[in-house]
């Protein structure tokens, strides 16, 4: 495909979506589009669409054959979040086709599709408006084609289920029959095409099953780890257990002589802790031969400078900093000293949470094929294919245009597959093997070489006035960084998910507020983990605010509402939306109206992140000896005007609640001698089927706000809602995660 010069159209003043269109010589149509609701959204590049005669291919995502078959391209990586179903639904809705007649195909990495990243809950907000216009533009052209054939006014025609109907005469023409005529039409101005009104939506808002479900339940090859190619080899890759360690030597000759082993070699790698790390590759005739040979592999490592990293040591370092000034002052409003001095009383608490792993059920893997012409073909379960391409180019010098990358369904992502380390490893191994090669990580590789959610410590002190209101707030947040030296200066920038925004609630809502941050240097690689930052901060602040409410002798909901509404016009935080959501969840959960016996109780929490507003009430039972059961979680969600796929949206809520509970209850990583101690599900347990809450009730508040995504915002408030409920039930306050750190015994 060749790239055409773009026909620049001035952006409209609101920076809302607009599209640019052009007609190609030869009858092909193109329709590129810009959409920039988020700073990171990239323009889609105009390219001519390959098109067979009689086909209608109005843009990169829609193809209508003369037979009437409608093919829609899913461009986003699918990791279980349901985007392969949701975005094609948006197209199909506006295109007016029968969902049962649609074929959905996964797009490769291709600039024609624009941004292809499944992260930050952005797939929906970046594409929703755009995809509606893409569908509506195609529908308009089909309407015009039919009107032209019949020589009638376009306004007398309607599109319905893949057919154009001429209302006065009752004549009909299917989309297939119209395809070649529609392809000759000039493309209408996509900013002016008529979009459907919400009340006419036939598909969006309904429960639609995932498009791959039938293949999943039949056990068809779908996932990265299932990729099989003729002549394929199987590889494993051993890295230093201490992050950043390098290979001194390895018993390669012995390993090469083992059964089924084809080759073993050292890869020098780089010093980028989230890039291509040094290690030893074993290439074999089967996964098991590679796994078995690996048991005989002996590597002498230079463990580097992080061999003393130790979780207990980090705790001690952090605690020593509790009252010290932070390295960075994130926010310093009013006069903290005067505020504290004037307070009627002060409340102090320290909160701590561990490093955690992503533990996607499908271990990291990637298949790569380096061909004699110097090109590289990659099959990757990834959330961020472009990052894979970029990293491979950077570390192996293979030019971008020589890399083809196929997006393969991922067995979970949760942020882990935004990183590209495993893609670079597969590519580096493939460069040495003249055949396709599949790299498979063991579960232990996956857990011990993750890019982790950083642990953290919050040392909080708050001044309350005589009425129990917060007048002064001080938080010293101790977090983690991988030190980097640039131009002779050492930088300690917190890792992904380890930086606190100065705007985090309730910072801006308090007159005398000081938020400080200090990062401890470590070698632990960090990366985005579902709702980065929020997944920990919501627990800390929503738990502590609950403590303050109890200290003030007030109802936690009323206390939160009063705090929130002190500053109704916070930029980028719609206090009105959150207030309405809290009222809604309180109503649905009958907050404050239920009498619980000792050992049972309810907790409330709310959080705004990733453009989504969420409030939750959890009800728990704690047995006298401390066993916890979550009885009910009521979730109220405001993610804008439209839920695209109700079933998918509910699944994200259910999954986020259970994921949140899984992390809260038992997940933690220990670090000793620079190594992650836990290696598999035996010592890093996931919630099981019996741990699920007895009931999860979901309420979507559809509000007149931009439509956004749901992969992340429900997770953060779960942990504080449950912890606040535990306090209500037992009087035990949880200030350390996971729950296994604290006895819940109350009798």
């Amino acid at each position, binding site marked *: 495909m060749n790239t055409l010069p773009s026909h620049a159209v001035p952006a409209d003043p609101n920076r809302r979506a607009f599209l640019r269109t052009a007609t190609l010589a030869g009858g092909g149509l193109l329709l590129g589009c810009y959409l920039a609701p988020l700073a990171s959204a990239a323009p889609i590049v105009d390219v001519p669409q390959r098109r067979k005669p009689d086909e209608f291919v109005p843009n990169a995502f829609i193809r209508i054959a003369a037979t009437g078959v409608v093919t829609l391209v899913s461009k986003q990586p699918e990791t279980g*979040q349901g985007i392969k179903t949701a975005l094609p639904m948006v197209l199909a809705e506006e295109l007016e086709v029968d969902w049962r007649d649609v074929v959905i195909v996964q797009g490769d990495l291709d600039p024609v599709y624009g941004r292809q990243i499944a992260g930050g809950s952005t797939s929906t907000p970046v594409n929703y408006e755009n995809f509606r216009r893409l569908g509506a533009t195609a529908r308009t052209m089909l309407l015009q084609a039919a009107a032209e054939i019949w020589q009638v006014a376009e306004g007398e025609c309607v599109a319905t289920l893949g057919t154009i109907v001429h209302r006065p005469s009752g004549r009909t023409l299917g989309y297939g029959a119209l395809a070649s005529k529609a392809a000759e039409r000039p493309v209408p101005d996509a900013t002016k095409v008529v979009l459907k009104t919400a009340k006419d939506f036939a598909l969006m808002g309904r*429960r639609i*099953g*995932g498009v791959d*479900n039938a293949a999943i*339940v*039949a056990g*068809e090859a779908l996932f990265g780890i299932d990729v099989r190619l003729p002549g394929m080899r199987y590889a494993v890759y051993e890295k230093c257990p201490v992050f950043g360690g390098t290979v001194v030597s390895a018993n390669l000759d012995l390993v090469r002589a083992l059964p089924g082993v084809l080759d073993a070699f050292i890869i020098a790698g780089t010093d980028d802790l989230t890039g291509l790390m040094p290690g030893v590759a074993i290439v074999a005739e089967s996964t098991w031969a590679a796994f078995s040979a690996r048991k005989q592999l002996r590597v002498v490592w230079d463990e580097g400078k992080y061999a003393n990293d130790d979780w207990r040591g980090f705790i001690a370092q952090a605690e020593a900093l509790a009252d010290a000034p932070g390295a960075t002052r994130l926010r310093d409003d009013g006069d903290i000293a005067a505020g504290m001095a004037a307070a009627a009383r002060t409340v102090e608490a320290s909160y701590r949470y561990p490093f955690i792993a992503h533990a996607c*059920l499908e271990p990291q893997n990637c298949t790569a094929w380096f061909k004699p012409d110097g090109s590289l073909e990659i099959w990757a379960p990834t959330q961020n294919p472009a990052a894979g391409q970029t990293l491979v180019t950077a570390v192996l010098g293979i030019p971008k245009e020589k890399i083809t990358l196929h997006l393969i369904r991922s067995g979970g992502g*949760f942020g882990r597959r935004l990183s590209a380390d495993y893609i670079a490893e597969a590519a580096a191994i493939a460069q040495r093997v003249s055949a396709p090669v599949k790299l498979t990580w063991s579960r232990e590789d996956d857990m011990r070489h993750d890019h982790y959610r950083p642990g953290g410590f919050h040392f909080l002190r708050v001044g309350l006035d005589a009425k129990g209101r917060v007048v002064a707030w001080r938080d010293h947040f101790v977090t983690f960084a991988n030190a980097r030296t640039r131009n002779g200066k050492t930088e300690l920038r917190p890792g992904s998910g380890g930086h606190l925004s100065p705007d985090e609630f309730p910072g801006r809502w308090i007159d005398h507020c000081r938020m400080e941050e200090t990062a401890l240097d470590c070698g632990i690689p960090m990366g985005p983990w579902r709702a980065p930052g929020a997944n920990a901060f919501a627990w800390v602040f929503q738990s502590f605010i609950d403590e303050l409410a109890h200290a003030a002798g007030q109802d936690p909901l009323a206390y939160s509402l009063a705090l929130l509404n002190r500053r109704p016009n916070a930029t980028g935080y719609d206090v009105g939306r959150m207030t309405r959501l809290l009222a809604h969840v309180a109503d649905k959960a009958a907050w404050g109206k239920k009498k619980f016996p000792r050992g049972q109780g309810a907790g409330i929490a709310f959080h705004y992140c990733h453009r989504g507003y969420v409030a939750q009430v959890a009800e728990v039972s704690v047995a006298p000896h401390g066993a916890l059961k979550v009885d009910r979680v009521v979730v109220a969600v405001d993610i804008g005007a439209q839920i695209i796929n109700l079933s998918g949206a509910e699944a994200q809520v259910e999954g986020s609640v259970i994921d949140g509970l899984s992390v809260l209850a038992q997940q933690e990583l220990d670090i000793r001698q620079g190594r992650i101690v836990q290696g598999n599900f035996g010592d890093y347990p996931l919630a099981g089927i019996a741990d699920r809450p007895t009931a999860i009730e979901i309420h979507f508040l559809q509000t007149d706000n931009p439509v956004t995504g749901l992969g992340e915002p429900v997770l953060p408030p779960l942990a504080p809602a449950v912890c606040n409920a535990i306090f209500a039930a037992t009087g035990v306050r949880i200030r350390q995660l996971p729950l296994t750190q604290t006895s819940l015994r109350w009798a």
Partner: protein
Amino acid sequence: MGIFTLVINGARHDVDVAPETPLLWVLRDTLGLVGTKFGCGIGECGACIVHLDDVPAKSCRTTVASVGKRRVTTIEGLGQPTRHPLQQAWVELDVPQCGFCQPGQLMSAAALLRENPQPTDKDIEEALAGNLCRCGTYPRIVAGVHRAAEIAAATPAGKKERT
């Protein structure tokens, strides 16, 4: 190496592999039956569950030599000749998220329904305790097993299967 004769989903396969090779990798790499998943390799996640003579077994912990004459049923064989009620229920209720754990969940659930056509929530929790789902599809798994029990009870095929 050695030649092992396996009967998988009703078909006979002779495989030439080391005797300690886990059945999981024979299925996936040697035979290309990749529906059975690798999740942990140590019997902790349940993604690799198959049936040996209708009894669920973790194929990552089952050496090929130990299979003997037992019939192997994998997810690919579950719906043969007609789609299993569980597969129908899973699609109907949109159970999968990423889907990676689901073959294992389905195999555990199928063994349960064979023994206990009308299981309670507790029965389901016990039978599926060894199947982890990172995506948290458990509420729908429970609903899916109940729905499959209903489908099986309402169809002649289901009745036949239970006799």
